[in-house]
């Protein structure tokens, strides 16, 4: 029961994924929404690596996880640039109050 196998890793990644979604839908601050997205990407990565290790699929899963990390870095940079622009325009970054594309 407590022997660690594929299931335990999948459960950890599922909990991480659910917490990430919860963070995205409940937080108002845009930076907190970004943190939720990072949690979800980490959960997906754990799944990739777990299936790659336990399913005998070679090393491809780890390489895809590497690509996900790179995409997460690019996404964080672009998103924070957008958030900074929103702050300059609206002087807050609450995602429920920003409903227009320009002032």
């Amino acid at each position, binding site marked *: 029961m407590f022997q660690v196998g594929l299931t335990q890793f999948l459960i950890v990644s599922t909990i991480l994924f*659910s917490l990430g979604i919860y963070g995205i839908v409940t937080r108002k601050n845009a930076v907190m929404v970004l943190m939720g997205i990072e949690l979800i990407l980490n959960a997906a990565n754990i799944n990739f690596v777990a299936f790659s290790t336990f399913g005998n699929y070679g090393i491809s899963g780890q390489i895809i996880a590497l690509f996900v*990390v790179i995409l997460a870095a690019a996404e964080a940079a672009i998103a924070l640039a957008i958030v900074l622009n929103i702050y300059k325009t609206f002087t807050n970054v609450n995602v*429920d109050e920003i409903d227009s594309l320009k002032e």
Partner: protein
Amino acid sequence: MEFYDIIFYLFALITIGSAFVVVTSRNIVYAAFSLLFTFFGVAGIYVLLGADFLAIVQIMVYVGGILILLLFGVMLTNKITSVEIRTGTVHLLPAAIGIGILFGAIISVMLWTNWNISPEPIPPSTTANIGRELITNYVLIFELLGMLLLIALIGAASIARRDKE
């Protein structure tokens, strides 16, 4: 319970506990620092899965890059008077119910699916294999990601640049 199992549960506890703090803490700075422990916990899980190179990448890119970027985002988008930078929340109860249903659905699918498990022995180091795969089978994606990072760099700089007065 072997030593491996104890270490796994330790890292899983660190990861999930700090991720819980990230999504429930009302103080954004506390959330950002909890995210640090989440990333370290995920790196530990990668090590337990035999992905040593990916664990180092996780620490260098996430902790050294993305987390610092997020902290800059927090600091630049709030009028800083103290460490108390708070965030509002919306739809707490409906979100909790919906996420509970989603979590139950995913967990039941994962537990009831008969996964094809054929574990291979964990190789001593994956770095050489990853490098070889990157320049043979995945060379197109590798180059495209290089282009993507360049585009993201230019795009982020031009979006965040202050307009000339």
